[in-house]
């Protein structure tokens, strides 16, 4: 049998690369990989002497399992998380949230429709009519602080019995347990640039079979373009019997597999959102989440009702919001221990305005009266952003192949009806872990057929798949407007996905509207030129959004946010990981939504209308990937998001 190892770019090895052999190589460390490695480790620790766990590459030693993570630290994750934790609790039956910093049981849940107190939000006539009636009904309808609370939380949104988490702390907690076992090595600060492919000519069928043979680590000691520079060190080739791909929605390895091996018929990743959040420390007099709610005590006649408004936020409180700052933007608020609050928004790809942006909208969001009464006088502790892949099952790639399997958000596991992804990702990881253990015990190789009969079969039979099918078309209506979208979501949610709206989902670049704001664009351009601020920021001001009253503590400039919390940095010696493929397309592009949506202001307008990228500011959110208004091939972005070093450093996200 002849074997030739290839990568995407080069048909043959040009450089002398170091090669290392392991049994299992993993790309990315997040909830999915945590689930996979936990399942593997749990099985191994039950009987470490089990010959099934003997390494094939280092006989006499246990399995050699390595996991490579781009972020500088396992704790440098980003996500505001509330989860039902069904799969997580199955892995840790005696889980005590107090063991995980910033974790808390969900104690209460609210769904709020936020009215616009300013009048700058772009709302349809139907929505304005609804707002008018709500304002008119006022307190009779339960409207308070320009917010209408739904009388009940829809069952499909419910997170009762679940947890609020800091994903960074959760990853760190899981990682510490995994590494303490001694079976697994998790290497942070190690970006992976591409998968290794092997072309095998099967002796049985005489046909080419393509397999993934491992991972190639990113070259170090290169200049911005990737050419060798001082201290050049070619990335090592890590060859493995099984490559587990859990590198998230914008991971380089997952996308490389899609490019080389294709995706299932009709599947494409066309729906996205940028989640951006603050972690805010509340002032002591506004909230004491660790104490009992005085109103509740008064209601239960434990203490006297002292009157006055309830200004406390309880530990484990979960809010879901919609309607503000723009109708398309959903928001959230979760209360962690020690007066910490995660509060954030999701800016979706179906929000067509080309100057859509996140940071300033987030600042307006937290100033909405319904939130501001709790958050004012708070202190910004950290900030972060990440892309969410919202195609769900419609974006699911091939889950298995010869020598590889895909798990987590990059495998389409996120449920966009329930708005949850962490538990689903975790569970896909445990499903693969259990499958791998089964195959090891059976002495079977990690072929596509074997992985499909175990991992895929279990996944298809699980609640993750059921939820994915129910959610599949839940958000179709949003491509026809917010009202249609909410109706569609309710329809899908209340019928378990049996009824839903139909929609044609265009590629991400076609979801960006080409229409300008007319007069406001001209006004904004004048403002932008005058004081040097970004155009999208000036556009918001021109539309009537008030200037942010910076206080240096909670309301800070975008650049200051990058410096707070854990800051943002990038190790020297790596190439630029955001690459603009066809510069002519960039020059011709009027929208330049990539600049407006860049979470870290790492993409700015450079010379000659070309975007300029500064890797030291990049938080690796991946927003640029799906906020490009151009496409060289009609489907994919003109921006490539490659493996790179650095990003956010905060441990409190």
């Amino acid at each position: 049998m002849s074997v030739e190892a290839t990568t995407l770019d080069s048909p043959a090895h040009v450089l002398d690369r170091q090669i290392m052999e392991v049994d299992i190589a993993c790309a990315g460390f997040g909830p999915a990989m945590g689930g996979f490695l936990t399942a593997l480790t749990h099985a191994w620790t039950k009987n470490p002497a089990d010959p099934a766990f003997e390494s094939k590459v280092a006989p006499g030693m246990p399995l050699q399992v390595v996991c490579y993570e781009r972020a500088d630290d396992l704790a440098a994750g980003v996500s505001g998380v509330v989860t039902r934790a069904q799969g997580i609790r199955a892995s840790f039956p005696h889980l005590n949230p107090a063991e995980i910093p910033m974790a808390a049981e969900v104690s209460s849940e609210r769904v709020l429709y936020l009215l616009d107190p300013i009048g700058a939000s772009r709302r349809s006539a139907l929505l304005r009519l609804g707002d008018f009636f709500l304002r008119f009904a006022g307190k009779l309808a339960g409207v308070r602080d320009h917010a209408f609370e739904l009388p009940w939380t829809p069952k499909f949104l419910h997170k009762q019995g679940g947890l609020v988490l800091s994903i960074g702390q959760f990853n760190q907690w899981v990682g510490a347990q995994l590494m303490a076992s001694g079976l697994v090595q998790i290497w942070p600060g190690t970006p992976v640039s591409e998968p290794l492919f092997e072309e095998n000519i099967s002796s049985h069928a005489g046909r080419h079979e393509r397999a993934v043979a491992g991972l190639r680590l990113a070259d170090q000691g290169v200049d911005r373009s990737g050419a060798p520079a001082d201290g050049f060190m070619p990335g090592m080739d890590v060859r493995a019997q099984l490559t587990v791909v859990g590198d998230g929605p914008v991971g380089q390895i997952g996308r490389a597999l899609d490019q080389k091996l294709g995706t299932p018929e009709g599947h494409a990743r066309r729906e996205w959102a940028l989640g951006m959040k603050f972690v805010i420390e509340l002032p002591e007099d506004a909230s004491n989440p660790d104490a009992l709610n005085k109103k509740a005590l008064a209601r239960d006649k434990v203490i006297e009702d002292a009157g006055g408004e309830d200004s406390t936020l309880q530990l484990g409180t979960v809010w879901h919001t919609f309607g503000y700052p723009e109708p398309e933007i959903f928001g959230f608020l979760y209360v962690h221990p020690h007066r910490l609050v995660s509060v954030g928004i999701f800016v979706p790809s179906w929000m067509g305005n080309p100057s859509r942006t996140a940071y300033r909208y987030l600042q307006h969001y937290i100033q909405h009266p319904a939130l501001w009464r709790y958050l004012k006088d708070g202190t910004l502790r950290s900030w972060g952003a990440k892309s969410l892949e919202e195609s769900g099952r419609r974006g699911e790639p091939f889950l298995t192949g010869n020598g590889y399997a895909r798990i987590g958000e990059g495998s389409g596991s996120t449920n966009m009806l329930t708005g949850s992804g962490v538990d689903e990702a975790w569970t896909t990881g445990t499903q693969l872990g259990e499958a791998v253990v089964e195959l090891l015990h059976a002495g079977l190789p990690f072929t596509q057929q074997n992985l499909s009969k175990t991992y895929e079969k279990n996944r298809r039979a699980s609640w993750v798949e059921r939820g994915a099918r129910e959610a599949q078309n839940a958000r179709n209506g949003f491509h026809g407007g917010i009202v249609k979208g909410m109706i569609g979501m309710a329809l899908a949610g209340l019928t378990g996905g049996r009824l839903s709206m139909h929609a044609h989902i265009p590629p991400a670049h076609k979801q960006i509207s080409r229409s300008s704001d007319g007069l406001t664009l001209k006004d904004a351009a004048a403002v932008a030129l005058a004081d040097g601020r970004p155009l999208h920021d000036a556009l918001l001001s021109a539309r009537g959004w008030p200037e942010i009253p910076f206080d240096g503590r909670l309301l800070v400039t975008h650049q200051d946010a990058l410096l707070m919390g854990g800051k943002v940095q990038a190790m020297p010696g790596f190439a630029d990981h955001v690459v603009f493929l066809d510069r002519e397309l960039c020059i011709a592009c009027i929208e330049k939504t990539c600049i407006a949506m860049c979470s870290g202001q790492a993409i700015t307008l450079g010379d000659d209308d070309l975007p300029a990228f500064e890797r030291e500011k990049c938080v690796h959110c991946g927003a640029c990937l799906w906020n490009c208004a151009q496409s060289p091939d009609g489907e994919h972005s003109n921006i490539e998001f490659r493996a790179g070093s650095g990003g956010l450093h905060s441990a409190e996200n």
Partner: protein
Amino acid sequence: MPNAVHIVVCAGIVPDPLQTLEPITTPNGPGLKNEMVLPAVLDPWAASALYEAANLAAKNPGSKLWLVSLGPKAKLQQVMMTVAQKVAFELVPIDGPIGGFPDAHSTAQVLAETIAALPGLDQAKLLLFGGWESATRGAGVTLQLIGERLGITDQFQGVDQIDFRDDGSFEVLERVEGGKHQLSVCSGTPAVLGWATGNLPEPRNNPQIGMANMRTIMPALQKAKPATLAANGLRYVSASLPKQQRATRVVKDLTPDQIARELVAWIGAE
């Protein structure tokens, strides 16, 4: 002619300096808010010492390199996943507390006893490396005390360079006032060198080095002996951060000189 040396690097772990650090008072004395939540790194000064040590060991065949580190085992393990990819060493972990407030004498005692007991260590060939101060409190005391406890009288602080001569003596450059270095010549080992930044860039992450290191680091961590540090009557009256102010602007049309003038004026005004 190469000089085989036995280098012991003492390196603590500290909260990642990029995080927001707030001093608080705990039942056990001063501390940092949410310290156990914060990611940790190897003390940056000591990290420079480690890279210089590895470079020296590589240039002098027959040399050995140990990294002795006192800290909670779980935190040490996390830090090692980054450090162990850089250079090859043998880890000697001590499971104990971290922070800028434990008594330096107690810390030095634990470290000195551990170093003296290292199997295979020839104290006649010993170079004791560390940071010239720690990133936790910057007192610059602990390494000197360790050296004294080990009976090493040749001590250098603020070191940026060491060069061996053929006869086993070596030259040391130490930082002094005015941005200058003092050149000293030491007749030979043992000696204590508290490093400043040295001259070497941070080594690249090398997975092969990492895998090789892990084969000894993991068992060492599992066998790490616990240590408690006596307070020795030390009591902190207060602790506070230096006052800091931030005002960030992005400018594209100013020259470096203009930016520098504006910064000088701003600093002067504060």
